[in-house]
């Protein structure tokens, strides 16, 4: 069986004035169905670029990105939108709920773009919100909820379309450590239920909650393996680049 997410020699280059920034520099990796992977790196390591490409918000400059066997690089903007809608569930650092809509309506949005009927949408959104423990907050506006509750709502929104990949970008970044742990536990539960979860973070203590860590530095993969191995949490600079090779 082929990998759910496969990077083949992916490069992403930005031009800032005269200088060339290689945000992704020949990255190759595979993520299988049902894995819980943390992509870790300091700012500027290319993890955001990596997440944008995985999330089909951006396409590689060169190399191939296969999502569920489909070449994303060859798609136009509308096809990308459709892939995001069907295959991906986003969880953002700033929750990114639509402030004018109720929690229930927010969770319905991905289903609306998928063309699900109003009635079915409502049912499925309610189920997803029950799953994250917000069944009593359906009609609340996002700003009436705490940060943790908003993040749970956005997890419900990510789940509701039954995507192939749940992509969490610094999901605990705006939360205190207690609610942060709660959110991570929820991701672990989703993983245990068979979902593929990709977590992007700069925080090692969050990253080790995953099964597998992919560490990025300067747009390159410097570690890819078990999250509980000692070298997973040690920065490559200390370890020495030769040591990894």
């Amino acid at each position, binding site marked *: 069986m082929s990998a759910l997410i496969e990077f083949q020699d992916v490069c992403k280059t930005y031009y800032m004035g005269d200088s060339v920034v290689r945000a992704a520099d020949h990255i190759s990796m595979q993520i299988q169905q049902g894995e819980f992977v943390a992509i870790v790196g300091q700012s500027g390591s290319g993890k955001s670029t990596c997440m*944008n490409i995985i*999330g089909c*918000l*951006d396409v590689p400059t060169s190399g191939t990105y296969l999502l569920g066997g489909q070449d994303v690089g060859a798609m136009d*903007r*509308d096809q990308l*939108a*459709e892939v*995001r*809608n*069907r295959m991906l569930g*986003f969880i*953002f650092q700033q929750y*990114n709920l*639509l402030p*004018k809509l109720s929690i229930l309506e927010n969770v319905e*949005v*991905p289903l*609306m*773009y*998928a*063309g699900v009927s*109003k009635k079915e949408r409502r049912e499925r959104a309610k189920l997803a919100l029950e799953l994250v423990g917000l069944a009593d907050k359906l009609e609340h506006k996002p700003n009436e909820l705490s940060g943790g509750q908003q993040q749970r709502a956005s997890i419900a*929104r990510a789940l509701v*379309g039954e995507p192939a990949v749940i992509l969490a970008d610094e999901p605990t970044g705006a939360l205190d450590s207690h609610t942060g742990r709660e959110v991570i536990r929820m991701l672990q539960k989703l993983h245990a239920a068979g979902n593929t979860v990709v977590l992007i973070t700069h925080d090692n203590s969050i990253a080790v909650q995953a099964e597998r860590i992919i560490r990025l530095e300067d747009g390159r993969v410097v570690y890819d393996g078990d999250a509980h191995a000692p070298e997973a949490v040690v920065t490559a600079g200390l370890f020495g680049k030769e040591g990894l090779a």
Partner: protein
Amino acid sequence: MKLWESFQLALSNIWASKMRSFLTMLGIVIGVCAVIVIVGLGNGMQTYMEDSFAEMGTNTLTVNIIGRGSSRSVSEEQMYEIVAENGDYLEYISPTVSMSGSVKIGSSYASATSVSGVSEDYFAMKDYGVAQGRGLQYVDIADRKKVCVIGQYLNQAYFGGNAVGEKLKIGENQFTIVGVLSQKTDTMEEGSTDDCVFVPYSTAARFSFTGTINSYTLTVVDETQAETCVSIIEDALYDVFEDEDAYMVSSMSEMLDTMNSMINMVVYILSAIAAISLVVGGIGIMNIMLVSVTERTKEIGIRKALGAKERYIMTQFVIEAAVTSALGGVMGIGLGYVLSSVATTVITVMLEAAITVTPTVGAVALAFGISAGIGILFGYLPAKKAALLNPIDALRYD
């Protein structure tokens, strides 16, 4: 995602910022309202003119003889002959002679009263009924009798309703009243059609300065043939005078057409000016939509991340602009109807003219269509901008 849902989304967004939406609509409201009131006013004026002309008779033609030096002239016998020869087209003819000199009844002057010399057929031509006494007769004209028929207004105002047999003076000459016409207008005011004196044209011609008859009123058999009748008379008169400038033939329906096209022209020009405010309103909507796109960059980014295709974003903004504009149109239509009835009242009171400002269904439909169209047109550019936003940049936008 269905179109109906886009509408609901648009309505809830408009409702969420009521004040701003209302101010955005205002240009459209005023424009639509102005178009409706102006077209309604033109419509009312047209109806008013048509009614007035109908009172005078749209089946009548007027011939004015200007003459050519003193050598050639046309006699009334010649004119009667023209009518007799064209019996298929022309029905009646009556010379009409305006008499100078004010009307004096007892010791008071009726200065607004119109005095005309006419033939015995005139009352039949103009559909005047005789209420008391008799109309003018052939012998009155042949003998140049000093008799007159008066309008109901004079009868009521000066003779207490029993004018027949009484006398009145026109200039220095005394006339005996032989008949009273039945009431023609609703109000019977001074200076109206009911305030009139008719004398035999022969008598009038004798007392007028020129002593000749320069004006004739004719009726046509078929109103729709008015144009043909005009040219028949023109041809006949050209044979007499051999000069096109010596006479003038005009038909009431022709004059009505001229008046109507003038009113229409004025209405078109005013509507065009009002329509400019629709364009200005549209630009206002575009401006606000552009601001709205910028404000909602983040929302657009989120929606795109969740799978909104470009055309959904596009539809959302275009529909929002169109709904804003169309709501403005609906308000404008409402306001237009209100102002129309206000205008009707004001005109009736101030000008004492029964002009009813009547908005036409066509104008309302057009105004609404244009306002919705403007929304789509001016919503397109901001919507395009929104649809083309890069989702990564939009998500990062604060």
